[in-house]
């Protein structure tokens, strides 16, 4: 093979494409990490950063506006987190904005979420320190779940005792469900009530035909009829 001009051009294009792809990858990854845009720095002081790392995203109103630039332990209980934020977002972040550490999805990376401040407040300045909110850690959630589980265990224990009492026929509900004599008595009571109701009905029919009450009942029927007619109109 001779080094013809065509081969040299092909080789040049081949190498150039590789170089352009590499530079483009560097550019886009760098752009995401705010390397090629105007930025400003703000910081937050946290007690616990929950595994936040340098390079994690900073999110504002659900938009990635920057990255974590540096993390520094200041004292035994405070950690300073420096954020590199895109200059375009500065006008939206107020002095009273708060930062909280969250997670990107259920299994995603840690992120730092900035909640917007009050709209009337002054815009944040370079190197300002913003307020932070203590994130709810997984340990706290697990502790609360444990308390809830303990309570559920107590409740289920009580329920178990109640069911056992019912099964043994103890107490009102136990007698209701398990005592046969109680059920028989109840049955007889219902029969008596039915019989009493039948007798009461006969007495009332007789009373309605009595001449002392007939006038009163007719007057009542007439009033009801008039009322219905008025409603129909």
């Amino acid at each position, binding site marked *: *093979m*001779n*080094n013809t001009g065509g*081969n*040299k051009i*092909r*080789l040049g294009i*081949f*190498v150039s*494409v*590789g*170089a352009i*792809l*590499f530079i483009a*990858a*560097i550019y*886009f*990854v*760098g752009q*995401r*990490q705010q390397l090629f845009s105007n930025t400003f720095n703000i910081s937050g002081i946290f007690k616990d950063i929950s595994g936040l790392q340098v*390079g994690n995203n900073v999110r504002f109103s659900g938009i990635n506006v920057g990255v974590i630039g540096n993390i520094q332990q200041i004292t035994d209980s405070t950690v300073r987190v420096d954020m590199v934020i895109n200059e375009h977002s500065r006008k939206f972040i107020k002095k009273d904005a708060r930062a909280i550490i969250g997670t990107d999805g259920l*299994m995603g990376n840690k992120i730092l979420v900035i909640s917007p401040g009050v709209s009337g407040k002054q815009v944040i300045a370079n190197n300002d320190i913003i307020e932070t909110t203590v994130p709810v850690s997984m340990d706290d959630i697990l502790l609360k779940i444990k308390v809830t589980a303990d309570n559920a265990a107590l409740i289920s224990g009580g329920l178990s005792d109640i069911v056992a009492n019912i099964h043994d026929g103890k107490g009102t509900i136990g007698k209701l469900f398990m005592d046969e004599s109680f059920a028989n008595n109840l049955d007889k009571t219902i029969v008596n009530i039915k019989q009493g109701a039948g007798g009461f009905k006969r007495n009332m029919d007789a009373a309605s035909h009595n001449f002392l009450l007939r006038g009163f009942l007719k007057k009542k029927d007439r009033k009801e009829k008039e009322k219905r007619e008025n409603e129909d109109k």
Partner: protein
Amino acid sequence: MPIDLKISGAVLEKGSSPGVIPLLNAFKSFFAAVTQLSLFAWRFLKEVFKPRYEFSELVKQSYLIGYKSFPLVAITGFIMGLVLTIQSRPTLAEFGAESWLPAMVAISIIREIGPVITALIFAGKVGSGIGAELASMKVTEQIDAMEVSGMNPFKYIVITRVVAATFMLPVLVIIADAIAMYGSYIGVNLKGDVSFHLFFLQVIGKLSFTDIFPATIKTFFFGFAVGLIGCYKGYNSNNGTEGVGQSANSAVVIGSLAVFIIDMIAVQITSFFT
């Protein structure tokens, strides 16, 4: 009094099993080969910066080694991205994490699979080619003829090929990675509907410099190893025409092994800094 038995250069002490002899011989041959290869590499490093530079031959070899390997590498890269995406989808779908597919495939390809698979393909095509070409030149005494005519055959034959292999493999890997990502995009869209812009953002969103730079740097070493081993095997070929086949074969086998060993070392070094 101990009796020493010398068989094929290996020393067998009294009471040793005869099965040890081939093992000892293999060890001896291995370390001798490592020494020879190291001396060959040292000679390369001494002569690579010394004039006279064979630029014309370097361009020719870059064309043959790099550009001519492009179609094979491109097809491999495309299939790699497509297959990895299709195979990964069911597992991610079980966790409801299908949206992670582009990022996962991108990180897998750019960090590891792209460089290693491309380097293996490169070792198969270029390593065997260099080994067979140089071995046949040795057999037909072309290398001796160069020496007699006052040329430096090592500079003209070895250095140009090793340098071309060192610089062409990274280019091939970068292009193969890009093609693999396109294959992955098609793989994602076989059972889904993701726009190219969203796919691109998902890929770039999860990549970092620690994914790109170490993966690219190690490909220079892969290329160097494949080129050097191919040249070493061809340049030191013997056994006549039979040796041509042996040189080509061992250039591929040792070159591929070297790729894995370098990869293992590169991963260990990278993990120190990340």
